[in-house]
């Protein structure tokens, strides 16, 4: 066995030196290379996992927000439809009220106009009767040559008015 080892150049001193070198490489690489790299890979893996989890959370929130928006849109549409119907109904009612008010006002205006016309007519008729009575008195006085007293004038006026009031 010793001869075999000699043949292949095995010596205890060199062997121990190489073992020490390997141990040194092992210890240093473990501490300064594999350890930090594995920690970094783990950190990156954790961050990616966190990112994925956040992404999932954001996606769920987005879905929730979209659902809320849809719900709000549906509600707004329903409210809008209701408001439109109400507005139409309200407008119809107002239109009806306004129409009725206008009709009523128009009726009142017509009645007032009729009243005014009637009053004016009566006033004109009164003036006409008065003027006509005066004319008849003047004419009667000139034709008869008689000065008519107040009594005669009153009687002639009444008779004339009675004739005109036809």
């Amino acid at each position, binding site marked *: 066995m010793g001869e075999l080892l000699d043949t292949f150049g095995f010596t205890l001193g060199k062997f121990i030196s*190489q073992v020490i070198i390997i141990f040194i490489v092992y210890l240093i*690489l473990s501490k300064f290379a594999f350890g930090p790299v594995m920690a*970094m890979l783990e950190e990156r893996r954790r*961050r990616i996992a966190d990112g994925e989890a956040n992404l999932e959370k954001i996606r769920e929130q987005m879905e929730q927000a979209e659902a809320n928006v849809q719900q709000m849109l549906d509600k707004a549409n329903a409210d809008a439809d209701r408001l439109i119907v109400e507005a139409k109904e309200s407008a119809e009612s107002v239109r009806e009220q306004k129409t009725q008010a206008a009709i009523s006002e128009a009726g009142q205006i017509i009645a007032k106009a009729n009243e005014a016309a009637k009053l004016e007519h009566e006033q004109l008729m009164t003036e006409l009767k008065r003027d006509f009575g005066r004319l008849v008195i003047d004419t009667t006085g000139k034709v008869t040559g008689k000065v008519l007293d107040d009594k005669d004038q009153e009687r002639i006026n009444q008779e004339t008015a009675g004739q005109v009031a036809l």
Partner: protein
Amino acid sequence: MQIHLIDQTFSHAILAAGGINAPHIPGLGSLSNSILVALIVTTVILLFTRMATRKMALVPDGKQNFVEFVVEFLYGQVEEIVGEKVAPRVFPLLATLFVFILSANWFGLIPGVGTIGFGEKVGFLMIDPDDHSFVPLLRPATADLNMTFGMAAVFMFMWVWITVKETGVIGFFKHVFAPKGGLTGFMWWALLPIFMFVGVIEIISIMFRPVSLSFRLLGNVYAGETLLHSMGNIGALMGMGEWPSRILGVLVPLPFYFMEILVGLIQAIVFTLLCAVYVQLSTAHDEDDH
């Protein structure tokens, strides 16, 4: 002995790296050329990893990215073999072995390693072709039994520690010697002698693991070195003139360099893979243990 530097293209046929032994470098005491290369490789690995991991960021730069890729890839492979539980404990050792073996193997392919050294000068940058006292300044670290056996020994030491930590001493012996397959009662006792015998064979096999690991790596790397040296000196070996020998010495080894790059990678994988399998075999729990 006069000391002169030689270059591969001008060297004559010599044994790879000056022979299977890793000689001491003249003037450097007991420092052998393979230890020197191991130190250089160690320094290069440590400097590179230190540069790559000194200022680590979540968004990695080129060096950090490369180191992370290598570590993540290796960890995935190791975890696949030894399992999720044991992987964190065994990964640093297996990764160290892989990185070191690969670096040492490829370092040995750098022109000049194994061919520049100390010997008797017979011409301009040439040594005596029959000079067997040639001492290369650099020698592939994995072409030295001391290094390969050292790595195997370190692995076996860690293997024992991991196995005992994982299964306990009694668990280990039970794992090796006790009947497996969920046997109970009479069958368990009946098959116990057979399993005891198999266990003894298993122990012998375990004892030979460092030998097989170290000699496999040594043999492959040393054979590759010898092949490259022979191809580099093929002109001289065939008795050609000086200039044809020099041209052939450059052209002929080229395809073999590519092959040796592959061999260097494969041998690093084989060594590490076998180590991982050994760990898996000793730490895997039988179904009836659960």
